[in-house]
């Protein structure tokens, strides 16, 4: 009798576990919250996929095989948010392959991945960020080398997206989101994160400056003194493009002036300028950095070009692509974007230094606030300084009549 009971117990346990595994897998496969399985998209069930917003490395690797783009836009989250792959100057189909906080090695691997899947690749646009080149930076935890270089999803990723609590919660969240009649704040279109236009939250803006400055102590810029190894990855991309006859466009992302001021205040400016010199030695670069009319946009809730000090909007992205591709040049401010070649580099760097002085004259309060953030960050009195920043900057806006650098 007892033996029979144990048998029943084992059978019940095994059957239940098996059925539960099958049900959960089937649910996750049907909802496909990351869009990597290729399940049919059903309105009200899984057509909107909010979880793709934070999983760019996984879903974009798989997405490449579906789109097989002729043009790719590579870069960090700045590219991810700011560059529209439907821009008329791009050879279609184009895909936004921006990744969150990558290093240059990751970009190289995704470029090679794209090339393996689409040997007919014709155009590559890369948004370069200085911090990508910190030799001490390692790939992000969600980067997996083995998922690149072939079509389809690899076994371990498949396991993760079918049999994990994360996948289950992602599916559930996707289902709930699709039942909600309001449109989501952000969606993915051809890889790009398209955000609903909205007011800029000034607190977020200043927190981004502060966070960026913390990155120099603990994050992406920590111990940044060398980029030699990173440069070899860019060199490999440049060489491959040259060998294959692929058009390559490099540009330095147009972060807000406060971002450049942070780099300046933290003593990284000479390294930054040397870095420019070295990348220009490999390939001409469009430089949107510095204190030009777009990057010096006055900080206010109604900003056109920035969502925070680091990320530019698609409006700024449009100007970037217009400048690079000589498209509707009349829409681009004259000082936005410099074509860097080795012979002209010193001239441009001096020009940026002059623009910085002008910016200081026109925006002394803002310059002081940025410096204050650095000082306060160092002494770790963050909470006290943010309200001060907000008050100061509001005051500064009222006092300054018309910022000359604004377009």
């Amino acid at each position, binding site marked *: 009798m*007892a033996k029979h009971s144990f048998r029943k117990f084992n059978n019940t346990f095994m059957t*239940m576990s098996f059925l539960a595994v099958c049900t959960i897998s089937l649910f996750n496969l049907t909802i496909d919250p990351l869009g990597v399985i290729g399940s049919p998209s059903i309105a009200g069930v899984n057509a909107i996929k909010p979880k793709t917003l934070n999983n760019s490395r*996984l879903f974009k690797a798989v997405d490449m095989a579906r789109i097989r783009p002729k043009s790719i836009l590579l870069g960090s*989250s700045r590219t991810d948010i700011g560059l529209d792959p439907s821009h008329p100057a791009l050879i279609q189909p184009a895909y936004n392959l921006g990744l969150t906080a990558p290093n240059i090695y990751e970009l190289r691997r995704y470029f090679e991945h794209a090339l393996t899947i689409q040997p007919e690749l014709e155009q590559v646009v890369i948004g370069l*960020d200085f911090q990508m080149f910190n030799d001490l930076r390692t790939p992000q935890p969600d980067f997996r080398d083995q998922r690149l270089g072939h079509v389809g999803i690899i076994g371990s990723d498949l396991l993760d997206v079918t049999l994990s609590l994360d996948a289950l919660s992602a599916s559930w969240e996707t289902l709930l989101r699709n039942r909600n009649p309001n449109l989501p704040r952000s969606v993915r279109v051809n890889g790009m994160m398209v955000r609903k236009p909205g007011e800029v939250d000034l607190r977020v803006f200043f927190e981004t400056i502060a966070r960026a400055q913390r990155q120099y102590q603990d994050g*992406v810029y920590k111990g940044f003194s060398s980029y030699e190894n990173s440069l070899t990855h860019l060199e490999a991309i440049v060489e491959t493009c040259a060998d294959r006859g692929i058009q390559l466009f490099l540009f330095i992302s147009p972060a807000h002036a406060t971002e450049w001021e942070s780099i300046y205040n933290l003593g990284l400016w000479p390294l930054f300028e040397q870095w420019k010199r070295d990348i220009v030695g490999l390939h001409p670069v469009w430089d949107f950095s510095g204190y030009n009319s777009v990057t010096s946009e006055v900080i206010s809730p109604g900003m056109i070009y920035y969502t925070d000090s680091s990320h530019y909007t698609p409006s700024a992205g449009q100007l970037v692509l217009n400048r690079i591709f000589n498209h509707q040049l009349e829409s681009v401010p004259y000082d936005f974007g410099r074509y860097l070649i080795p012979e002209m580099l010193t001239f441009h760097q001096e020009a940026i230094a002059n623009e910085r002085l002008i910016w200081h004259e026109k925006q002394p309060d803002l310059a002081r606030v940025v410096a204050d953030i650095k000082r306060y960050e160092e002494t770790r009195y963050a909470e006290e300084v943010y309200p001060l920043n907000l008050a100061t900057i509001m005051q500064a806006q009222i006092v300054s009549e018309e910022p000359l650098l604004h377009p």
Partner: protein
Amino acid sequence: MVNYLLGNRLHEVRCNQRLSRIFLYFGLLFNIGLIAYYKYTVFLMSWLPPSKLSVWITQLLHPDNIILPLAISFYTFQQISYLVDAYRGVIPNYSLLDYSLFVLFFPQLIAGPIVHHYEVIPQFNRLRNLLFCQKNFAIGCIVFVIGLSKKVLIADSLAGWVTLPFNHAAELSFIEAWTAALSYTYQLYFDFSGYCDMALGLGLMLNVKLPINFNSPYKSTSIVEFWRRWHITLSNFLRDYLYIPLGGNRLGESRRVINLMITMLLGGLWHGAGWTYIAWGGFHGVCLSINHIWKKVGFYLPKQISWLVTFLAVIIGWVIFRAQSLGDAGHILWAMTGIEGILLPGKYRGLVSNLEMFGIRFNNFPSLDYFPGGLESIVILFIVTLWVVFLPNTQELIQKFKPRWWWSLLLGFLAMLTLLSMSRVTEFLYFQF
């Protein structure tokens, strides 16, 4: 193979004491030499002053290329005990197959328990054990699933609160140091007890009963009791093959202390090649010695106080064990004393502002950078403390097991939750750059 042949030779020549002693010493040297090479070469080389000799040794041994064989610490001890028992003449003649199975029996190979040949080899040959047993399988499943869930759901989650603060030991404040120390104390508890349960459960599914290795150690009210409850098979091994051969407590109190210290220092070194492990072993040696002396002079504390003192000693031990260097351990322990001031997150100022009268300061995020769990971690660590002190352990739970449908439901749910927690979709969590 070498150990098996040596064991056989020892069995054959056990009447010739001189010869058998030579074989035993050779065997010990062989095993200890192997583990020393694989596990301690880099550590031992760090002691050498830079010289031609050290360069020559580096070129000879290539310490950077040494890959530690899986589970060498565990099977080395098992084989040493086998050789010593062969020398003592207390083993029968095992077949090579039985012996190999004993050493490589997968449920216990990686994380123990350190089993004695007489505990398992006879079980391999019992005919009944070759038949599938529903009862053993059911109980094995339960023990395995409980063990796996302890490891995956609790230990691995707590690990997230441990790495960051221990990597920034010098910068920790009072509360960060305490949560880090407690998180690690419980991470290790659930990790190790999880492994022990898994080994026991797997063994049981195959009808092999492995020895119990873990018995609610944090319920101990003395360090002596702690070592009877924590890694029981290691304690037994060290007692039988090191402490007692050294003379144990038979040669007076001072020799007992010396023997205890030697045993625990070596026990510490066995856990890993580093000064922190040796210091941890030494610390436990000192605690055990004090405990024995207290007992000897008849000094007793109330039970609750004894538990608290023991638990504090265990936590201090784990901080030394986990820290990346002795300096780091010192920093964390110093911060834990609160002498440098007690800093609490500013957002709790409203709740317990009266504490400011007692010199407790409140600071604002991000000043508490190494407090990854926040208030949540304090609540969870408190619950876990109650758990490890008051709740029954796996063995006690199994006693209550009846093959009822709700047990299978509970177990199925736990198994599912654990399985789903084993893989994860790694997200990019903060949105910057």
